[in-house]
């Protein structure tokens, strides 16, 4: 189901990239290579989809187990706490530490590739602050 795969591949923010004009410049050529229909629809690495949804799938399994052992109240309470803690974020163009979310998940005591590679706090690019705020507030 190619349409399904395409929607799974794209990340959440639907803004097209604010780049210069030119036949190739509307697309991050160095990082993504030439844009083609195939690269938009199919995953470029066999593990891409599985890694993208890894956290979600793990949470799903854990909550299902918890529900079977302790009853529906356990996952319900935890999900409520997760939701509450996810709302504490900085402005959209700044990186949030998510420290409460990490502690609840148990990630505060783990180190993984996401802490070493491609750390968002060390990113070389930043979104245009005013544009992002306007998009968030719905003024755009």
């Amino acid at each position, binding site marked *: 189901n190619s349409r399904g795969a395409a929607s799974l591949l794209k990340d959440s923010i639907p803004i097209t990239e604010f780049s210069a004009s030119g036949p190739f410049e509307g697309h991050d050529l160095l990082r993504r*290579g030439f844009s083609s229909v195939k690269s938009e629809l199919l995953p470029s*690495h*066999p593990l*891409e989809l599985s*890694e993208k949804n*890894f956290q979600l799938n793990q949470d799903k399994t854990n909550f299902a187990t918890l529900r079977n052992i302790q009853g529906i109240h356990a996952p319900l309470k935890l999900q409520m706490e997760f939701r509450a803690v996810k709302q504490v974020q900085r402005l959209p163009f700044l990186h949030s530490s998510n420290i409460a979310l990490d502690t609840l998940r148990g990630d505060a005591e783990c180190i993984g590739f*996401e802490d070493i590679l*491609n750390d*968002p706090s060390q990113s070389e690019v930043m979104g245009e602050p005013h544009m992002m705020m306007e998009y968030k507030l719905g003024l755009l």
Partner: protein
Amino acid sequence: PRPGSLPALCCRNSLLEAELVQKGLRLPAPRKTGTTIAGVVFKDGVVLGADTRATEGMVVADKNCSKIHFISPNIYCCGAGTAADTEMTTQLISSNLELHSLSTGRLPRVVTANRMLKQMLFRYQGYIGAALVLGGVDVTGPHLYSIYPHGSTDKLPYVTMGSGSLAAMAVFEDKYKSDMEEEEAKQLVRDAIAAGIYNDLGSGSNVDICVISKSKLDFLRPYDVANRKGDRFGRYKCEKGTTAVLTESVSLLEFEVVDETVQTMDTS
């Protein structure tokens, strides 16, 4: 871009590879360890052994690399497969185990390291090419595990991994006895790794041994230099005057000092 994103550069890499294949070139080969690693449980602990050659295709990339990695003071891990993968995987697990042990307040157990490694390797479905021999001593005694790149593990009294594993396993199958003494166990592992070094192209150079027991840790590097480069017996340089000198003329080159700068070296 989300943290730790895998496929960001995969598109570009596959495109580059397609371009190069068209021109008849090849992508550079990743450095593998094409190895012999082995481990044995003896009376008071475990002995881990490894050779020291790292290959990059058909060329030896490192004649004396260290394949026995630190996981925790009482747990060490030998790695075969892609050198970067084994190095990074063991470092990641070592960090996680340290955090875990600080959180529990206890000495880490070998079975914990095993569980963390197999869960991580299974998550990446064999794309992380790391075949490991994990050994250590904890409160429950000495343990030895072998871990395959896809995430399966075996708990055994003697294990071998790598391209020279068959040669080393042949030696183990012949001479292994349960409850050996330390010296006997060290000699057995040395013999097994030497079998791998002499009979496998991907293994070579020296034998490194790591003995882990409850009271002590011995890291012997190198334990045995199995392949010594040939020693030269004499000076092969020619003395001045070996070739007859027919004529000699000396001409001075005139240099003009244009500029002089003094740069102090930081020798602190």
